[in-house]
């Protein structure tokens, strides 16, 4: 079983560190939070797992019959991370998976900004080679340029750009795929901010819980455009010309046509379109004819200078923009642990927030997920710290051993990442 949203292997055999300061705050939070907010649907049929400071690895195979016992456990142990199974079992407490008696599994979509390429990652993410200690910015290379080693410690960071992109992808998942294509009402989904890097969307109706791995994979493949064949969906280069799609077509055919119409309409407004310069020029030259045909649902896509090969490139780039960056294994896996609602994230101190589709639009993780507010604290950094924002104040960048007075939310954020200490 894997835990979504955590580097599971990193915790194996390692006692997670958490300062007493943070632990006391976590405990205070769990004392005051309402039971109803904490308890997931079907509490008694789920397995729980916790990362608890001072205990090695993950404390697995926990189950609760009474919501009060669950809250009591959280208060007593103040876990750094709390998860429950997306799976429902008849005997969730048994410590062997084959004895738990699987009855179904929520369908989960995970959007994590770790899996989304954003330009800012080059500015705020760093890596350290475990072989020679060499460092670099951005994503870790395949091989260390200094020693050729291939083991790195990734130091990823969070910023508004990354989390905004994750939110955009979540909106795309809900609006363009789950509502429009799969016909699900927006209020039939449970939407959560994970507490760190992204969002989870849960589908908990019985019909979804009964889905097998193959059907889950097919849904994931639809959303990520895996296995999409434009010729199979009707794109036909013929001797007389090119047969394209209309904006009214169901499935990916209509999605591509609507994406193309939006892209060429955006050209007038000066918006960028992500196709190579050569293709862009050809589209620009033909945009009025093409726009007219798309608006009239004309499938004739024959245009001067744009043959099947160039169309192939253009459609490929459109698909890249139109598909959604879900973490596919999370959706397919029916034995996954997922972060528990309204629990605190041990790497940020942020709370896992349940949202409605309307709330998602205005949701600001760096403000709305911050639990510990006010109370200025003096901190001293223990490492270089990139710039970050908590509520309406931006902090850093800091050099190692710098001191500053920050809000309690910012102090918790840095303490959770072992980047500072509170100066008495």
């Amino acid at each position, binding site marked *: 079983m894997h835990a979504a949203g955590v580097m599971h292997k990193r915790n194996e055999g390692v006692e997670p560190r958490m300062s007493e300061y943070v632990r006391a705050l976590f405990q205070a939070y769990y004392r005051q939070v309402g039971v109803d907010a904490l308890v997931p649907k079907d509490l008694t049929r789920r397995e729980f797992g916790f990362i608890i400071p001072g205990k090695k690895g993950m404390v697995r195979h926990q189950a609760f019959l009474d919501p009060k016992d669950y809250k009591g456990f959280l208060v007593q142990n103040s876990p750094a991370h709390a998860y429950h199974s997306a799976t429902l079992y008849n005997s969730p407490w048994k410590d062997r998976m084959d004895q738990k008696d699987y009855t179904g599994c929520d369908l989960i979509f995970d959007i994590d900004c770790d899996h989304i390429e954003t330009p800012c990652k080059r500015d705020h993410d760093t890596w350290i080679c475990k072989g020679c200690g060499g460092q670099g910015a951005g994503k870790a290379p395949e091989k260390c340029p200094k020693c050729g080693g291939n083991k790195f410690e990734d130091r990823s960071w969070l910023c508004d750009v990354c989390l905004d992109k994750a939110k955009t992808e979540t909106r795309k998942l809900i609006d363009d795929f789950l509502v429009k294509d799969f016909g699900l009402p927006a209020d039939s989904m449970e939407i959560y901010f994970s507490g760190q890097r992204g969002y989870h969307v849960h589908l908990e109706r019985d019909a979804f819980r009964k889905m097998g791995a193959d059907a889950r994979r097919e*849904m994931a493949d*639809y959303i990520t455009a895996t296995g999409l064949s434009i010729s*199979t969906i009707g794109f036909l280069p013929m001797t007389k010309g090119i047969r394209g799609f209309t904006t009214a077509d169901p499935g990916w055919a209509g999605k591509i046509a609507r994406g193309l119409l939006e892209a060429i309409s955006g050209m007038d407004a000066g918006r960028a379109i992500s196709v190579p310069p050569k293709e862009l020029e050809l589209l620009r030259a033909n945009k009025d004819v093409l726009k007219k045909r798309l608006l009239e649902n004309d499938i004739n896509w024959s245009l001067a200078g744009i043959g099947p090969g160039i169309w192939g490139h253009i459609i490929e780039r459109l698909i890249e923009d139109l598909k959604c960056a879900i973490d596919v294994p999370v959706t397919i896996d029916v034995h996954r642990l997922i972060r528990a609602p309204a629990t605190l994230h041990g790497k940020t101190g942020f709370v896992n927030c349940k949202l409605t589709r309307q709330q998602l639009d205005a949701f600001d993780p760096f403000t709305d997920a911050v639990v510990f507010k006010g109370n200025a604290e003096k901190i001293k950094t223990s490492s270089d710290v990139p710039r970050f924002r908590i509520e309406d104040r931006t902090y850093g960048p800091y050099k190692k051993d710098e001191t500053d007075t920050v809000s309690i939310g910012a102090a918790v954020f840095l303490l959770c990442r072992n980047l500072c200490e509170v100066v008495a």
Partner: protein
Amino acid sequence: MTAQPKPRTIPFNVLCKYPFLNESIAWMQEKSVTPIEALYSHASMTDNIRAIISDALDGKEQTKALRHDDEEGLYIYPWIRIILAFLNLPRLTHRMGNLLSKHFSNLLEQENDLTVLVVARDQSINAEEVPSDKRVAINTVPFPYRLPFLEFLDVAARFKSHAWKLVNKLLKGGYVYLRKHDLVRLLEEVIKLKVIEPSAAASDDALKEAFSSDPLLNPFYEDIAANARERMATAAGGGGMEDLPVDDNAFPPCINAIVEKNARGINLAHSERLFLVYFLLTIGKTVDEVLDLFRNQPDYNEKITRYQVEFAAGKHGKQTQYKPHNCVTLESLGMCKKDDPQFGSKYCTEPKKPFKNPLTFYRRRTWYRAKKASEAASARAGEDDEARVDAAGAASDARGGGNAQAE
């Protein structure tokens, strides 16, 4: 007070033509005729059962022995399933699944729209006609039916063809839009699953006892059983189906999964067959060795299969020798088994160097296994040398001298 029979919604002639329907089975149950009574009351039924089983053994996709115009057409279907359950020959069961599903799908293709919809709904495929204001046509081809996507996936997620992936289907507002042919293809799969699913007759001891003690039916069954067992043994190349001449020790998980499926006589999807052939030929298997493997398939036809395997080997057509699919293609086809609990391998999920094609997996494993075998052989040879020296010393001692080396 006796229970009133449920009113029938499907005409009797349709029930006779499609005996797998739930309503057909309900009709038979209402009649309260025991299976053995049904067999005795239809004179030609035993001969027709024998002919249908023979057609299945031949790998046919149509049979002339299924009657569609009277009660016999109804009663023969449960009897075929009862005999399959008694015989317990998985490959014959799969061949029968193939024969009957293809046979009924051919009939359904010729039916009017209403009958296809009625049959689909009886089989819990709740397809509906698309309302006139929501009609869909792609390149002038109409898609008159639609099916909730979860019901579509219940059946179609098993298909391996690219064209049947949800991503390549017309999905809108929770419905997958279908042509009549698509709906019939879904039904074909449902029928196949019904035929091969375990029958309750397998554990019906009373029926078994009544059947085996009947003076006329027992020789009929024994004759069918002997014939089927002999034909299945011949089809497997003279050995048991588990003794296929395939060296699977270095195969990647994706190939192992297909080989195992084939060994159980399960009908392989087109993409699985192609991948298996390309892979086996590329690693150096001969055309005949590949052909032997396919003898296990329910629809095996020596002439067609030989031509196709030889084509893949570059002996016909443009003489192209095709390579097996890359891992990414296998993933999107749902044929990648790297994480499969039965077939998965850490050499796929945690390779020292990433690879793109399962051939690399095979070559690395082959090399590694050869190296280990060679090391083991060297170690054994060293032990033998030591043993020979010891033996020589002992022989010398026995001869009474310490100068064996000088000799």
